[in-house]
């Protein structure tokens, strides 16, 4: 157990590096903060694309329009055939009347379709809801192709393009954020390790004397580890602060923007601290080899 005087010393020394090299430390924190900001930005974009994709996929249900003159019987026969297609969760029949009412509801009160047209032009249709695992562009296309072969079917409609584009971007961004995280991790560790090395080089005499009078390696190490962690913490808080500020500005303009949950923010900052720890550890290792 360290004594009170030792703890006091360790605390003071952990911050002393900051005070002695304000510029170096400041630059380090800024560089690391920017790198982490880029990392967080990529994560946020990936998160948002993912959530957008989820929403889009939730809405990629198929609308199967039928030919007009089928008759109630043949229309009803289609329902069991649709339900057994793999990937289909449920099927709902929408008659011509229901379709018209739906349209009326969408247009609002200004236009009265019922009076504007004397015959109902809307075809009967089936609303096909897909099971979650079938909500991908490939699965939807497969189901569409199958249904289109049926002679009763006039047309199949869904938001195909939209989902495909989203899916492509989503996978691109996932890969990109993976690469960016690796680069940023390496950069952050490197930058911190360099600053801590500078601190240690400037205190070579101090370290030598500490060893000489019998300081344990842990005692020598601790202030530098703290310094690295502190730099990581500050860089992480700065990056997260900038991002959170930008988010709160954009939130009013963009609907459904996803941000980190508080726990994710804490996790991000903890990650930054551990990057600092790894960086300073790497710097010290070389120094303390007796």
């Amino acid at each position, binding site marked *: 157990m*360290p*004594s*009170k*005087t*030792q703890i006091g*010393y360790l605390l003071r020394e952990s911050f002393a590096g900051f005070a002695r090299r304000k510029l170096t430390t400041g630059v380090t924190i800024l560089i690391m903060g920017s790198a982490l900001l880029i990392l967080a930005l990529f994560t946020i974009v990936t998160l948002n694309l993912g959530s957008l994709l989820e929403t889009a996929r939730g809405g990629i249900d198929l609308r199967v329009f039928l030919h007009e003159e089928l008759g109630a019987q043949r229309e009803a026969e289609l329902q069991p055939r649709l339900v057994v297609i793999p990937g289909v969760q449920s099927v709902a029949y929408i008659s011509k009347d229901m379709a018209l009412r739906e349209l009326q509801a969408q247009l609002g009160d200004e236009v009265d379709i019922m009076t504007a047209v004397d015959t109902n032009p809307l075809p009967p249709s089936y609303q096909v809801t897909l099971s979650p695992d079938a909500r991908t562009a490939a699965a939807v296309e497969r189901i569409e192709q199958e249904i289109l072969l049926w002679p009763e079917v006039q047309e199949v409609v869904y938001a195909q393009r939209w989902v495909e584009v989203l899916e492509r971007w989503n996978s691109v961004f996932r890969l990109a954020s993976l690469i960016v995280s690796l680069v940023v991790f390496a950069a952050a560790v490197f930058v911190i390790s360099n600053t801590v090395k500078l601190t240690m080089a400037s205190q070579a*005499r*101090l370290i*030598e*004397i*500490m*060893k*000489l*009078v*019998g*300081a*344990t*390696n842990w*005692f020598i190490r601790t202030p530098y580890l703290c310094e690295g962690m502190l730099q990581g913490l500050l860089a992480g808080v700065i990056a997260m602060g900038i991002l959170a500020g930008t988010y709160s500005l954009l939130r009013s303009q963009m609907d459904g923007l996803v941000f980190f949950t508080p726990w994710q923010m804490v996790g991000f900052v903890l990650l930054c601290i551990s990057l600092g720890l790894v960086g300073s550890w790497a710097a010290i290792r070389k120094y303390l080899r*007796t």
Partner: protein
Amino acid sequence: MKFDSKINKGPLDLRTVIGFFHTHLLYRDHAALTDVSFTVANGEFVCLTGPSGAGKSSILRLITMDLLPTEGQVIVRGMVSTNMNRRRIPLLRREIGYVFQDFRLLEDRDVYQNVQFAQVVVGISSKQMKNNVMRLLTQVGLWDKRHRLPHQLSGGEQQRVAIARAMVNSPKILLADEPTGNLDPVVAQEIIDLLFRINTGGTCVVFSTHDHEIVKNFGQRVIVIENGRITSDEEHKTAASTAHRLADRMYRPSAPQPAAVRVQEGSERA
């Protein structure tokens, strides 16, 4: 462990604080020490002399276990180089004071802080620490200059600060590596006297110097080392020196009492 005739197997003399047993040291592929054997008893004053590069510093670094022998064995305060836990080396170093030719003080801290620092590292309570630092600085006669920075002191004063720092943790062994190398003869003699006083207090002193002449007049044991080998190890107790030392110890009321240098055991460590 395989049998090795070059390792001390028998019981050590209880008074032995430093023991070298057929120690060989390869340093950067060059034989720094060859078959060095000697023991130092508790409270002894030993001079280590020989030309620069002969291996004096290697011996001192082996004593602090900063280096470990390539072959043979070094035993210091019961710590055995061939069979030890490296994590305990810091504890050994707390029992060894070390003084250098170039003082090695922390330039950005004042005299008081320099001495205090050695105690902070070891983790002594702040009240004890204050007492110890005051006592040591008074003994080396620098209490009045405790707020000076090292560069505001003369060479002799800086070395006395270094000695205070080395002694503040009440070590059993004091290693002095050319402590007078940067000092003029008068100041050098003051430092040597201080080391003698520390020795009379019961601390074992190993005094390393390339200057064989000053050492001869000490009237102490002198180990001569040349080319990494011990070439002579004998007492230089001239009648004159013994009488002088005796008189010095007994009739110098102005000098701090030897007993004061020795620190009460047990109470010092937190």
